[in-house]
């Protein structure tokens, strides 16, 4: 009797876990998918799917390997705005069943599905409920924290829910961020569309970049704002500094080394930027609020007429800026070279008043 009870139990365990096991394909000669800019993933074609290797942003060692079978990915929980934008760019937003916060979503398709009950809120990476995630019956959850495991990752795996970090924001080239759309293409089974989308973005970006190079007058540009007592602004090798240069701007800290943000004192900022012409991304929607947190900002040369931010279209920016660096670059050219009327209107940025 005891033996038969244990046997039943064992069968139950095997069957519970067994139907969630991944198929192990043979990876003898996987076909590499061309990745031109991104440094934090590698993608290979295997039978019926793809092999995705995520690389650690610092060391470039393989941190995790995923077998992706597009036919299995019917329900996606996207806790990162970038992914929402990329899924929308591939017309795959219907696969989304979960988001972090409705108030952070820009895409009208996702918003209307949320209103109809097809998409639910699950909170940020740290605040989600295990039970709610399991009940969602999602196949995959995307999140964007580096070097940290998703809470209850192993338990979710047992329920057949894969979790995958998205490192696009740690890439150091604007087009590298956009190239993550190939990962989304692999997941949704739309790799051809993703490749075509990226090729077009790359082409448009390079056209604009060539245009930016040729402007003879390059306005000086400052970025960021005070957080506490330090002014955070991109280092010279940061992707955003790169974009300012590509747009024909003269970034004030272009000669600094590194890719992370610089932390400068307000004295240094005032000393360097009294005559700087353009100030980008002060982090607030209006000048009154800027002055509340940083009263000395009024001394900056750009403060009077040339402060610009994406804060009035924040949701759109967070969703689309990674996959559409060409649009961000186009905005920068419009701001830096208003005399050139050939570019068109602003996509994300607006003047701060």
């Amino acid at each position: 009797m005891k033996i038969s009870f244990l046997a039943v139990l064992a069968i139950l365990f095997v069957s519970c876990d067994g139907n969630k096991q991944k198929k192990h394909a043979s990876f003898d000669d996987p076909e590499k998918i061309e990745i031109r800019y991104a440094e934090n993933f590698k993608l290979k074609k295997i039978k019926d799917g793809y092999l995705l290797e995520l690389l650690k942003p610092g060391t470039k060692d393989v941190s995790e390997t995923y077998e992706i079978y597009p036919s299995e990915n019917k329900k996606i929980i996207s806790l990162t705005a970038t992914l929402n934008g990329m899924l929308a760019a591939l017309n795959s937003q219907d696969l989304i069943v979960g988001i972090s916060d409705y108030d952070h979503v820009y895409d009208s398709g996702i918003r209307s599905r949320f209103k109809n009950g097809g998409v639910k809120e699950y909170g940020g990476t740290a605040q989600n409920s295990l039970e709610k995630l399991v009940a969602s019956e999602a196949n995959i959850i995307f999140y964007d924290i580096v070097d940290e495991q998703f809470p209850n990752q192993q338990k979710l795996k047992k329920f057949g829910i894969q979790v995958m970090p998205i490192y696009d924001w740690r890439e150091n080239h604007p087009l590298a961020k956009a190239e993550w759309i190939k990962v989304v293409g692999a997941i949704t089974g739309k790799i051809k569309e993703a490749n075509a989308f990226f090729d077009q973005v790359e082409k448009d970006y390079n056209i604009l970049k060539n245009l930016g190079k040729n402007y003879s007058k390059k306005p000086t540009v400052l970025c960021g704002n005070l957080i506490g007592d330090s002014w955070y602004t991109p280092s010279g090798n940061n992707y955003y500094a790169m974009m300012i240069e590509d747009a024909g701007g003269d970034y004030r800290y272009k000669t600094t080394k590194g890719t992370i943000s610089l932390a400068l004192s307000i004295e240094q900022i005032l000393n360097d930027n009294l005559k700087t012409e353009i100030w980008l991304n002060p982090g607030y929607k209006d000048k009154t609020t800027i002055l509340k947190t940083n009263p000395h900002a009024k001394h900056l040369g750009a403060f009077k007429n040339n402060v610009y931010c994406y804060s009035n279209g924040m949701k759109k920016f967070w969703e689309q800026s990674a996959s559409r660096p060409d649009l961000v670059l186009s905005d920068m050219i419009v701001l830096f070279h208003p005399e050139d009327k050939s570019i068109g209107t602003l996509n994300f940025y607006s003047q701060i008043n």
Partner: protein
Amino acid sequence: MNISKRQNALLLALLICLPIIALIHLFVGQIDISFTDYFDSIFNFDDRNASHLISRELRIPRMTMAVIAGAGLSIAGLLMQTLFNNPLAGPYVLGINSGASLFVALTIMTGIPFFTSDLGIVTNALIGAFLFGLIILFFSTMVRMQISLLLIGLMLGSFTSALVSLAQTASDAQELKIFTMWALGSLQKVELHQLPLILACFGASILGAFLVVKPLNALVLGDKEARLLGTNIKRVRLVIILITAIITGVVTAFCGPIAFVGLAVPNLVRILFKTQSHAILIIASILIGAMFILLCDIAIQLIEPHFIMPINALTSIIGAPFVILLVLRRLK
């Protein structure tokens, strides 16, 4: 005022040291500023000259605010310690800072249309500080043991933290950011044109503190003895709470919460001067408190290229071990 030779020498040394440290503070920073720059920034100011702007708009207000914050919070702490006859009392521990913080948080994050100008934040910080001062005063009449009052102060702090957390969850990203920036504490937010208001509040509080020197000396003997000596206890308590609220409110409004100065400095002054004369204690608290914050801020600016530290963090790092030492010393 009876003053020993040792106390006299100490006060003289402090009087000499304070201007020297203040002068050093003026010349420490990321940018080299000369005497000429300071002179020109005052008498030939050119707002297109970075050195003039940094001298006049950043360093002079920052140095003045450091002096006011250090001296003011130390006096507030001294008055609270005498009022509650408890060396561990202080505006931070007793929740007066928390009251100011709560009201600033409510102003920034709940959109209460009270005031939106700088004066609005100051007024709210003052109301918060004064209200929580009165609450502590009320409880002080109900409890006998000193430790109970400290516990009540800590509970008030926890209570306000919880309310601030609630306000934070209900606020939008921008409001949350503004409050977080304010709560980090900073001496550099103050502008030159705000100094007259701050100096007026500070001057009035110092004057008030000197006016209650006699009752303060009497309070050291205990409430009964003070009454016998003709002290109007109720009035003195109210005046002390008012002075403390004004100083704490103004400093907290313009610099954010600065911990432990009000607790640590008066105790240090008592250890150094070994006196119960509040005239001496007030003068020494002003000098040592001002020097303490100036030195902290000099240290912050020197390490800034390598490591960023808010003023509130540094005062806590120095202040918390000092309080532990103080408690251990008393237990012995």
